[in-house]
Structures are given as C-alpha cells and as structure tokens.
C-alpha cells in the first residue's frame, strides 16, 4: 500500500513538473514576415527577455544590417518576443538550459553566443559551419531538419556534406 502511494506520488510529480523538450513552438505572422524575411524566425524561447530587449533597441545596426521597422510593428514584435521569452518557459529543456548558462551580468543578443548553444556546437568542424550551404551558426534550418517545428535534438541533425550527426 505504501509503495502504491509512493508510486502515485512519483507519477503525479512527473506529470505536474511537465518537463518539455526544446523550446515552445510559438508563431506570429508579423514576426515571420518581418524578421523571417532575412533569417530563420528564431523562437522567442531561445533567449531571455533582457536579450530580446537589447536586440530590439538597436535594429538600425542589427548584426551589421539595417532592420528598422515602424513603431507599431516594433511594439507588436517586442510584445511577442517578451511574452514568450526563455525565462518564462523554464519547463522547456532548452529554454531552461540557455537561461541557466548565461552569467547574471551578461546579456547576449546572439543565440549562438549563449554559453549553452556555443557548447552544443563546439565539436563541429569550422569548415562545416562556414561552408556556403550553412554560412554560420545563425542558420539553424541548414542542419536541424525540424527547426521550423522547434525540434532541436541531435537525432534530427543532418549537416550538408557531412551527414547525420552522431554524438
């Protein structure tokens, strides 16, 4: 009887903690149209709110490009990013790991520079990242087959001119 109760408790805690994979799959049409016009529309759950705020504060020099938008668009996109940012989704494995990897006094605006994402890509040979089919770590969809569905596990990785990634 005691074991049974214990098992029920374990079960309950497992379900209630509700640990999910990767990052939340959220979408916004304006976000896809505006940000997704030039690069993969990164999920807001890949960076904490302070990162998104810093990034949005200098769209005139957005990784070297002019990505300025009108005020109304800016407000809509900021709201979408902030409401779905990583630190609000700590029940998602990768959102949590990204947040936990960032030192308190640091604000990263490049997802690939956050310690967790940097570490996860460290073993990949540089020429595979810089090759023309990929160009850089910013190009998630080049290797992560399910990136658009917010799937980022190792089994889903297929690197051009290399193949499946075996960890």
């Amino acid at each position: 009887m005691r074991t049974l109760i214990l098992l029920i408790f374990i079960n309950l805690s497992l379900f209630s903690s509700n640990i999910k994979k990767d990052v939340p799959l959220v979408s916004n049409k304006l976000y896809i149209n505006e940000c997704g016009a030039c690069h993969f529309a990164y999920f807001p759950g890949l960076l904490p709110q302070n990162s998104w705020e810093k990034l949005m504060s200098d769209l005139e020099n957005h990784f070297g490009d002019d990505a300025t938008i009108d005020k109304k668009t800016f407000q809509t996109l900021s709201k979408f990013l902030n409401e779905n940012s990583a630190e609000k989704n700590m029940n998602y494995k990768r959102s949590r790991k990204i947040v936990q990897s960032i030192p308190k006094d640091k604000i990263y605006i490049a997802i690939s520079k956050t310690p967790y994402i940097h570490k996860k890509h460290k073993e990949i040979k540089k020429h595979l990242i810089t090759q023309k089919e990929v160009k850089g770590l910013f190009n998630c969809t080049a290797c992560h087959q399910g990136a658009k569905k917010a799937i980022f596990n190792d089994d889903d990785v297929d690197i051009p001119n290399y193949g499946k990634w075996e960890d």
Partner: protein
Amino acid sequence: MKNLLLIFIFATFSFSSELNTYLSNLKKEAAKENPNFKEFNIKRGEEIFTSKHIGKKGKKIACTSCHGIDLTKKSENYFTAKEIEPLSKKVNPTRLTDVKKVKKWLRRNFKDVYNRVGTAQEKGDVLVYILNK
C-alpha cells in the same frame, strides 16, 4: 463576363495605382533635387542595382548579391542564406504593390549596399528597372 472584365481592369488599376502615386511623388522630389532631371531611367536603375559598393558591413556587395541577376528566379540572402522570392512581377505579381513595404526595403537596402540613404532619383530609377524585369 463584361462585369468580370471590369472588375479585373479595376483590380489591376488599383493594384498599381498605389505604386504609381509613389513614383510620381518621387519624380517631384527628384526634380527638386536635380533641376536637369526629366524621367526615371531603366539603364541608370540597372547600374544602381548591379554595381558593387562597400556596404554597411564593410563588404563589397550589390543588390544582386542577394536578389540575383535574373529577377524571375528565387535567390538567397548573401549573409544568411535565407531564400528570397523573385522580385519580378512576371512571376511574383504581388511584388511592388505594397508601397509601405517598398519604402521599407528601399530604405534598408540602400543602407546595406550603399551605406547611405538613396536619393529620390535613385529610388525611382531602381524601381523602374525592377518593374521592367
């Protein structure tokens, strides 16, 4: 049938009228900037679109670096490899219909390629070049 034709003509007209208004505004502005200005010119537009310049990132690029030479074909962003739909209205009729969008990209892309804003004449020239493709 006649009604359908009328609707079609009206639709075509209203689609392009927004851009035509923008072009005529640019024309007035260009005349103010340059007293010798007469008309927008496809040849000048081609030069603007295909010539290379040191852009905002310090790299030598042209509009064609991202949009390609053949505007009826898909291309990709030179820096991010993100796919770009064709600019030509022949294969992509909705192109250059939303003036707000047109202004936004002219503003951004002149900065990205020329590292400065475009003049009214340059904007008009490059628009008539793309419209002709």
